[in-house]
């Protein structure tokens, strides 16, 4: 060892000795936690940052693809009776746009950011179940590729992202188009569920010592609520799409009214998932808003408890209002009034959040950095979307505006306003942490203004179009209806919005190459992800941090204890208790592995096979079982890995040491 003589020589100098020990630890951790080199190591990575980055880039790629489809639709609708797209292609395009945005962009990107940020924010070395995490990513990727390959091959789904039966059913949905849609749901759902599992476990078990539940950053709460919502919403759609596939493939009768099935059953199942879905997308968005606002207002968030309770109650109420998508289906009116109440009620927690955020700004000293601009844009857009949402909660108003461009305007206001603007804020905010370089600030501001103006120009006119009778999902309209001018305006706005997204891409690429190098904490933020280097090392923290307050980095003393005593030759992590985050036990995380990828490939083969034959299901299980066997094959343990005294300590009160206060 080269350090040995050096160490001896400098034994008197404690600080230097410590530095050497740190360097030693750093190298050991790098070796233990780092990905293996080369393409193979890249494929086998289970590091949450590697996987998270992949996840974010892939989801962003799908965002671009779906955005291109949106541009095509706006070109088609710019003028009446346009023949740019034929109806068949238009139907595929709007279906693909909605499906991709909802299933392949919005939900995955929120999970992706959580996969990257959550362990850092909680002070953990990796996300819980890292191999499952890699598996979740691969399954999502393959599902998305499958859908888009199908689309390119003219087998793109064409019955809308909601795929109402009977239009998507066996009689009216000829060919395999709806099957690819339904199977894409299965992929996304598997991926979403495994990521939700990791998020929940990471949240409850891998927090830094001292981060009791009342000290968890709001963003972490928001992804926790999201993960629980995924947990309860996704199985519904998985079951519904499985029924649809069975109806189509083997002639079952779940949705056949002539045989006792019911097309409305599909709608109930779909919206029981579909409405929580929008909160799954929106709630992490509020997490971004809280985080960014607190940092750039230079003060703790106002009303922490109220905000957390709002998130949780939104999560609950979100499951009680699916029927407002079905007010026109002829359900009993009194029952519908109940859902009006629930729909309107959800404005209360949203209102609480908005008020608390404004109070945070009021009591703080706002800094107008680019992430903050997106959050301010969020306020303007989202509040409008919320207002139109309350209008539609009323059954009579909904009967008029349902399935018109008014609704198109509304949900783009809440989803782009409530999720995409905060997400772009988050991109600008965490870019230095993810890449190690600052995102160009001037171009960031320009991006914001172009997107903001473009967005409002695109979607505001749609409110008026809807009230003036323009239904959704029409591939064209007749000139005498008088919708041409507003549609042209919307299309022009769409060009501007596209330009805004392009500006962001240009800015990101430029900054990746030549951006200013970022310090550890360039924004002066309070949460733990800023306590490590930018970008963070494979092991996240040289010594995992401890926490003694909510806004850790703002309030902690210079000699805040850190966790030592975790082994650096294996992937050892500290598991803490659910409520108070006191250290509970040490656990060893698995090594990088190629098996999740292979398992995902086997799963993909089975899923795609079942589109064509039911036999793919039992037969396809065999390779999945084989790959899972490889995945879970027990590791050969070396005896010296677990010194007996350490095992003994495990049962003691405190088996880890905090640096600075020896136990």
């Amino acid at each position, binding site marked *: 060892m080269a350090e040995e003589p050096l160490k001896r020589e400098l034994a008197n100098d404690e600080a230097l000795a410590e530095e050497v020990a740190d360097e030693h630890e750093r190298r050991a951790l790098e070796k233990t936690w780092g990905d293996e080199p080369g393409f193979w190591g890249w494929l086998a990575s289970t590091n949450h940052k590697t996987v998270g980055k992949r996840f974010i880039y892939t989801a962003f790629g799908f965002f671009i693809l779906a955005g291109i489809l949106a541009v095509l639709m706006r070109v088609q609708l710019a003028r009446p009776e346009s023949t740019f797209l034929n*109806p*068949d292609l238009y*139907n595929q395009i709007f279906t693909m746009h909605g499906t991709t945005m909802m299933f392949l962009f919005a939900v995955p990107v929120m999970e992706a950011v959580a996969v990257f940020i959550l362990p850092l924010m909680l002070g953990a070395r990796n996300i819980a179940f890292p191999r499952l995490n890699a598996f979740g990513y691969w399954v999502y990727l393959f599902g998305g590729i499958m859908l888009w390959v199908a689309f390119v091959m003219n087998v793109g789904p064409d019955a809308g992202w909601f795929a109402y039966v*009977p*239009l998507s059913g066996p*009689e*009216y949905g000829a060919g395999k188009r709806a099957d690819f849609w339904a199977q894409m749901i299965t992929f996304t759902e598997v991926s979403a569920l495994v990521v939700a599992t990791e998020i929940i476990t990471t949240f409850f078990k891998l927090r830094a010592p001292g981060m009791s539940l009342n000290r968890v950053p709001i963003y972490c709460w928001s992804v926790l609520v999201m993960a629980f919502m995924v947990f309860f919403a996704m199985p519904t759609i998985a079951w519904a799409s499985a029924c649809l596939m069975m109806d189509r493939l083997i002639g079952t009768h779940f949705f056949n*009214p*002539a045989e006792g099935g019911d*097309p409305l059953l599909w709608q109930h199942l779909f919206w029981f998932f579909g409405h929580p879905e929008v909160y799954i997308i929106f709630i992490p968005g509020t997490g971004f808003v809280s985080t960014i606002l607190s940092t750039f207002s*230079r*003060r703790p968030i*106002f*009303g922490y408890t109220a905000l957390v309770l709002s998130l949780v109650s939104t999560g609950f109420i979100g499951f009680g209002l699916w029927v407002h998508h079905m007010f*026109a*289906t*002829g359900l009993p009116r009194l029952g519908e*009034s109940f859902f*009006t109440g629930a729909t*309107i*009620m959800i404005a*209360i927690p949203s*209102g609480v959040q908005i*008020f*608390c955020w404004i*109070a945070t*700004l*009021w*009591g703080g000293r*706002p*800094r107008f950095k680019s992430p903050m601009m997106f959050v*301010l844009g969020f*306020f303007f857009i989202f*509040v*409008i979307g919320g*207002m139109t949402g*309350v*209008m539609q*909660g*009323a*059954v*009579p*108003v909904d*009967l*008029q505006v*349902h*399935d*018109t461009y008014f609704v198109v305007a509304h949900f783009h206001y809440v989803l782009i306003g409530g999720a995409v603007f905060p997400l772009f804020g988050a991109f600008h905010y965490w870019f230095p942490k993810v890449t190690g370089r600052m995102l160009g600030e001037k171009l960031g501001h320009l991006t914001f203004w172009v997107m903001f103006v473009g967005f409002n120009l695109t979607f505001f006119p749609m409110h008026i179009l809807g*009230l*003036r*009778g323009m*239904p*959704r*999902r*029409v*591939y064209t*309209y007749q000139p*005498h209806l008088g919708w041409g001018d507003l549609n042209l305006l919307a299309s022009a706005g769409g060009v501007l919005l596209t330009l805004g997204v392009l500006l962001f891409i240009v800015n990101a690429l430029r900054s990746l190459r030549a951006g200013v190098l970022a310090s550890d904490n360039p924004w002066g933020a309070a949460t733990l992800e800023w306590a490590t280097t930018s970008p963070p090392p494979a092991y996240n923290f040289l010594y995992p941090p401890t926490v003694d307050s909510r806004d850790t980095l*703002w*309030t902690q003393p210079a000699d805040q204890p850190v966790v030592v005593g975790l082994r650096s030759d294996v992937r050892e992590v500290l598991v803490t208790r659910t409520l108070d985050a006191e250290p509970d036990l040490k656990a060893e995380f698995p090594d990088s592995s190629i098996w999740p990828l292979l398992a995902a490939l086997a799963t993909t083969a089975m899923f795609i096979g079942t589109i064509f034959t039911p036999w793919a299901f039992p037969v396809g299980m065999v390779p999945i079982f084989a790959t899972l066997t490889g995945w879970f094959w027990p590791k050969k343990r070396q005896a010296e890995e677990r010194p007996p005294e350490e095992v003994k300590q495990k049962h003691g009160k405190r088996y880890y040491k905090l640096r600075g206060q020896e136990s």
Partner: protein
Amino acid sequence: MPSQSALHPAGPQAGRIISLWWMMFYVTGAVFLIVMAFLVAALARRRRPYAGEAADVPDVRPEAARERRMSHVVLTGVGLTVVILFVFLIRSYVTGRALDSLHEQDHLTVKVVGHQWWWEVSYDNSTAAYTVTTANEIHIPTGRPVLFKLTSTDVIHSFWVPNLHGKMDLVPGHENVTWLKADQEGTYRGQCAEFCGHQHAHMAFTVVAEPYDKFKAWYDAQLKPAAEPVNPSQAQGRQVFLSSPCVMCHTIRGTDAGSRVGPDLTHVASRGTLAAGTLENTRGHLGGWVVDSQKIKPGNRMPPNNLEPADLQALLDYLQSLK
């Protein structure tokens, strides 16, 4: 041109809905402005930097008194939100009740069946001989509530005349009902509002609201079988109709054509539009539609018909005589 807009109500239901909407618009608009005013004020507020601290140092322990004041304001805001939402809820419920209270003992009943992509319309009557069947054009008397029974034989459609009322879906295997009442005379355009396949965009219809006398006259005319040809060209046209694929799908009452796959053409010339509100009913449009409907409405169920020019002209003569 017929109007299709929720903003210009022509009946009590659309009127109630739009007044509810305007009420909500003004209230939520005011709320929006207030929230934005607070936001701008929060951003523009002058702040004294703390003595001896750089402006960028976070304010970790905000002044307690101000925090308390802010929480009062926030609580007030939440309270007001709850009150406003409660008012909306009550108002919405009352409007909903009013919409559904439109009933009349001796009412007209219209059955509407949705097809990909046209509307089959029949007027219920206990005597079969007084039943009128038509397509894509509904006549109703003004000032009277009319009951609509809605269903579909293929996929889900939605029946929507924005000037008169909100939507009601046509669901296969279900029969939904809705009432319409027009106070003002006029022609209102309706359109399918649930995505139903290739030609969802071209699945429109018209509702003609007219005084009872005019309605009665129209109804009586519709009851009659098709007009007999009055000249050789029309006679030849009828022959063309009966000996070509036309007869496989369409009905012309009074002739041998009795298939119900496509719209009833007994009085096709009396209707304002062709192809479910896609084309104005003119001779040129009719000819183009018969010969090459897939160009006009790609994917619709009408096959191309390669007729000899003379036959086509005769057919058009005949169809145009079916007033």
